[in-house]
């Protein structure tokens, strides 16, 4: 009992500390939405241009079934594209880092492709593969693949000279050196790519849906905007943001679990 109550207290204390630390960010956030809410009537903005946040909430609530089913579709495209990108890019990055042939052939090619805005391929993929799930997954994949693979190459080829020498001096084989030294040393840089790709994954999905689809949040945002229903377009944007937040949350959690020792995790901005 005593334990439970003390735990309860520390929980309260924790919340209180969080409020004390971040009240300014919270106040600014709340202030922003209040300003938005009242500026509509204050500046006489017509409702077909912009609606107050309160109206977004009520209208979104009325259209919730559609929003939820579209969120499911867009989330599916995002996650599939992202996961396939990880599954292909990580081993490929590793292979490129250790193969001089791949580093001279595939690597420069990838660096060049990285300059191309992948989104520009979206209309082509839609025309080749139609309106279905596949072209969207491919576009999310393209958006995510390059930052992941390029950061993985960097991660696996930048072990400090000192640690390389240390590993050689122990006589450890390739596999043991990899699992005990190379892989953990490479993880922080790998996460740089994974986070960057995670932030852009929903962008890829939304734009692919703008170009050609009959469902999903991108489609929803486009249609409702066309119908002069900005409140529903905003609802779509918020749900899209939600997908991005959940994805980023999962990556950040994985980072905390896998590299709790790294400075980016230890000194995360409050």
């Amino acid at each position, binding site marked *: 009992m005593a334990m439970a109550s003390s735990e309860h207290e520390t929980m309260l204390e924790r919340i209180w500390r969080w409020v004390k630390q971040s009240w300014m960010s919270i106040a600014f956030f709340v202030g922003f939405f209040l300003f938005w809410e009242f500026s509509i009537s204050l500046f006489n903005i017509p409702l077909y241009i912009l609606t107050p946040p309160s109206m977004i909430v009520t209208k979104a609530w009325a259209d919730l079934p559609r929003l939820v089913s579209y969120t499911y579709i867009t989330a599916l495209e995002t996650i599939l594209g992202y996961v396939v990108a990880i599954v292909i890019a990580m081993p490929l990055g590793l292979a490129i880092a250790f193969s001089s042939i791949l580093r001279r052939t595939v690597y420069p090619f990838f660096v060049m492709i990285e300059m191309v805005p992948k989104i520009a391929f979206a209309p082509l993929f839609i025309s080749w593969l139609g309106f279905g799930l596949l072209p969207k997954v491919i576009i999310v994949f393209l958006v995510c693949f390059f930052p992941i693979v390029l950061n993985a190459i960097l991660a696996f080829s930048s072990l*400090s000279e*000192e*640690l390389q*020498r*240390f*590993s*050689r*001096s*122990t*006589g*450890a084989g390739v596999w*043991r*050196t990899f699992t*005990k*030294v190379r892989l*953990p*040393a490479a993880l922080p840089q790998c996460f740089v790519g994974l986070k960057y790709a995670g932030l852009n994954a929903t962008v890829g999905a939304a734009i692919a849906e703008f170009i050609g689809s009959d469902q999903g949040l991108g489609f929803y945002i486009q249609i409702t905007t066309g119908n002069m229903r900005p409140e529903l377009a905003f609802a779509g944007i918020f749900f899209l943001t939600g997908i991005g937040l959940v994805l980023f949350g999962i990556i950040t959690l994985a980072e905390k679990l896998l*590299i709790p*020792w*790294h*400075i980016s995790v*230890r000194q995360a901005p409050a």
Partner: protein
Amino acid sequence: MTSLIEIQGLSKTYGAGSSAVHAFGPMSLDIDEGEFISFLGPSGCGKSTLMLMIAGLLEASEGSICLGGKEVLGPQTDIGIMFQDNTLVPWRSVRGNIDLQLEMRGIPARTRREHVTSLLKSVALEDFADRYPFELSGGMQQRAAFCQAMVHDPKIVLLDEPLGKLDAMTREHIRTDLQRLWMLTRPTVVFVTHSIEEAVQLSSKVALITPRPGKIASVIDVGLPFPRNQKVKGSTEFVGLVRHIHEIFHGYGVI
């Protein structure tokens, strides 16, 4: 009697042709078992290069090195090395880092638990076994790195400026520890430094290395008794030897 470490006509040249840089040598030197020898010289004279070649981590351009009668042709796994930047990994605790040396050699860490504990005790780190490197001061990190280099009981120990990045007071303190530990088991130590006082305090022999390309100018026997405590360090012999070496380097235009 043959020496434990025999260096014959060793030299190192980086690059080839007109852009080749002659970094080091040629030099020959024999180091006896149980010796504490310092390579003392200005930065850039190839002290670290020499150490890496003894460890078999860098190929010699010419000449040869033999450890215990066997020629060095690749990485030597039965020696202990402390590199200029310590090789503590940030994802392991102090104990985990020492265990890493064992695990890399295929020795299960749990079979050496007590050995690691006593090693940590010998450098006063037993209360920090579960701390991570970033939680330690520079001096403590170097002590942990020392344990990492020593945990597999090497007969030959190579220390490349292990105290180079520490403040003067911490250096002084760790020198004393280092000497005490060396006196316990008397491994053969090759110690790279650019501090004259440090070399004289710690070593049984000091090899003076000239500026680039590094060559051995002379090997000085330090006949002072161990441990070289404050009393020995204040003696006229100690002070005289430090001044003598100082003058030699002054002659090279280094100091």
